[in-house]
């Protein structure tokens, strides 16, 4: 199937009448996923959005419930967002990140209704990456510029049009409803060519990384790696797979709401206990946790690496702490750093 680029705004307008449609929208020098009110708002040319698509399903601050305590008792009100949504123009790395996050919010111990309701009611329409950025390393972590994991439809840019690849039943139904035209053999070969031409230039060798992390918790390398890190939340908040959260009450007296906020392992109050004790006393332990959580604990728990290679942390770290370099250093610790 195929849709011409000039038909995209009209297609989105139709979707907007039925769904809450999220698409990348220009915000100064970057794009962000926003709920759009007009099909022309969507910007499909830029590479990844500044903030990942995770914030649509797992917002930075989510009201879990409102509460109200009176003499007769406590009243709770929960508002679970069950609006039907389409995420349009999501990149394959972000789509894959949600499949990874599903492990956290839906497992044999916990099912998170807020996240899962949104996931169940959302159709994911992805766009393949014809020109991956120099900071992208998706192919090193099981993804790829045209990977369909987590998508319902994948659009492939062939110049004036997008060739539409159906990935799931949900996607099939949407495509049928939209009445996309059939793609000609020419279109199909143009799509195949675009796929072939897309080159992820950066590779990160993760062979043996997990084995290393299994045994190097106390290794001297951690004394050095974190040294330039400022301990801010930029890398974690911009990361599509980071998912630590903190729960706080936003209340006056006994009236207010309970809110779930993104947390970051880089912060000094991360895992600070009520007693005042913190098992992660310094930046060293905190930065180690970032690497361990992504490349060891998540693998231990769910069998997957919790990084999709989107490169956001690389581009946005204020001190150019580059996770690719860090992983190299960890893998070759004796050879690389202990001089």
């Amino acid at each position, binding site marked *: 199937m195929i849709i011409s680029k000039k038909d995209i705004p009209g297609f989105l307008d139709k979707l907007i009448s039925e769904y809450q449609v999220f698409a990348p929208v220009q915000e100064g020098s*970057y794009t962000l996923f926003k709920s759009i009110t007009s099909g022309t708002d969507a910007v499909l040319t830029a*590479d990844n959005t500044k903030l990942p698509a995770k914030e649509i399903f797992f917002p930075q601050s989510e009201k879990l419930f409102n509460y109200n305590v009176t003499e007769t008792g406590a009243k709770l009100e929960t508002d679970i967002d069950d609006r039907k949504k389409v995420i349009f123009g999501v990149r394959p790395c972000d789509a894959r990140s949600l499949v990874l996050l599903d492990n956290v919010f839906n497992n044999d111990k916990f099912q998170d209704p807020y996240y899962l309701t949104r996931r169940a009611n959302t159709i994911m329409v992805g766009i393949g990456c014809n020109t991956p950025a120099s900071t992208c390393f998706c192919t090193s972590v099981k993804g790829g510029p045209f990977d369909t994991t987590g998508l319902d439809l994948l659009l492939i840019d062939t110049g004036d049009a997008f060739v539409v690849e159906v990935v799931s039943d949900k996607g099939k139904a949407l495509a049928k409803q939209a009445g996309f035209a059939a793609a000609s053999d020419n279109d199909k070969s143009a799509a195949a060519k675009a796929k072939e031409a897309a080159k992820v230039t950066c590779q990160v060798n993760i062979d043996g990384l997990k084995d290393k992390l299994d045994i190097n918790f106390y290794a001297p390398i951690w004394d050095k790696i974190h040294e330039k890190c400022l301990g801010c*939340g930029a890398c974690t908040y*911009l990361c599509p797979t980071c998912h630590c959260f903190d729960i706080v009450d936003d209340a006056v007296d006994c009236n207010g709401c309970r809110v779930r*906020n993104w947390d970051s392992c880089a912060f000094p109050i991360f895992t600070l206990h009520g007693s005042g004790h913190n098992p992660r006393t310094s930046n060293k332990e905190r930065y180690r946790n970032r690497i361990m959580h992504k490349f060891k604990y998540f693998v231990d728990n769910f069998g997957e690496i919790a990084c999709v290679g989107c490169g956001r942390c690389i581009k946005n770290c*204020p*001190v150019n702490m580059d996770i690719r370099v860090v992983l190299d250093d960890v893998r070759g610790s004796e050879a690389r750093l202990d001089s």
Partner: protein
Amino acid sequence: MPKLAEQIKDAAKKLLAEQKVDLVVGFAEGSLPLRGTPLFARTPEEADKLTWNLGCENNLANYLRKKPGKVAVVAKGCDVRAIIALVKENQINRDDLYIIGVPCSGMIDRKKTAALLDDEDILAIEESGDTVVIKSNNSSATAKVADLLHNSCRDCSYGNPVIYDELVGELLPEKEAADFTEINDFEAKSVAERRAFMNSEFSKCIRCYACRNACPLCYCEECFVDCNQPEWIGKSAYNTEDNILFQVVRVFHCAGRCVDCGACERACPMGINLRLLTRKLVKDVKELYNAEAGVNMEDKPALATFTVDDPEAFLLKE
């Protein structure tokens, strides 16, 4: 620049080889085009990685507080100003710090370079004298370094380190202090306009605190935003008022201490115009007390001193 890099390397290696210092904090080549990244060298071999380029934008004074042993730092003008401010606040012992001063005519703003190529992915930036060539996949552009500087660098008149133990390179011609045009323009707006601007700017804030952590003068053991007994400020990010409150309190807390290095604004991943606030305070401190932070070792910090003729326009309405 390559020459400066060599001189920095030589100076650092010598200090380490002669065991005059235990550590040299400087910049190594980063992983992005024309990006310096902080480096901590403890051996002459490690010091071999030191470099100097137009992307050495971080304020290294941030790393010097309470570092054990003797430390040397590769410091440009604004780093030195922050060092002086920190020495005065008893955060750095001057006797334990060796300053390798580097005259600096400004660092380039990667947002400005990216804008030249329509925010395409920049693959290379090549320095050649006072121009740079910027390359992406499909296009390239040549621009004057002077047009690409961070605004803080553009306005800075302290590119020459005001104190140092050793200087590499040549001192630059003195530059006039910039005026406060942007601040004056903002002050001239109506309250409603200023409010609207603040709201739109700080609705972008994700409370990652990169600004706070990149600032060499923001070093409270416990930041008021992290305290929850009492909870001074809402912890959730859906409230722009709280985002503004955080930044305004941070900026006020840096009043008379801020050295206008721009590190906070550069660190912000969301591109928020923080310097509008920090520089407003720089202007006020200059106008009210004729003081500037970190420009010499002698002056007392503006808020640590008092004279009977200090203006009190904000206290008393006569």
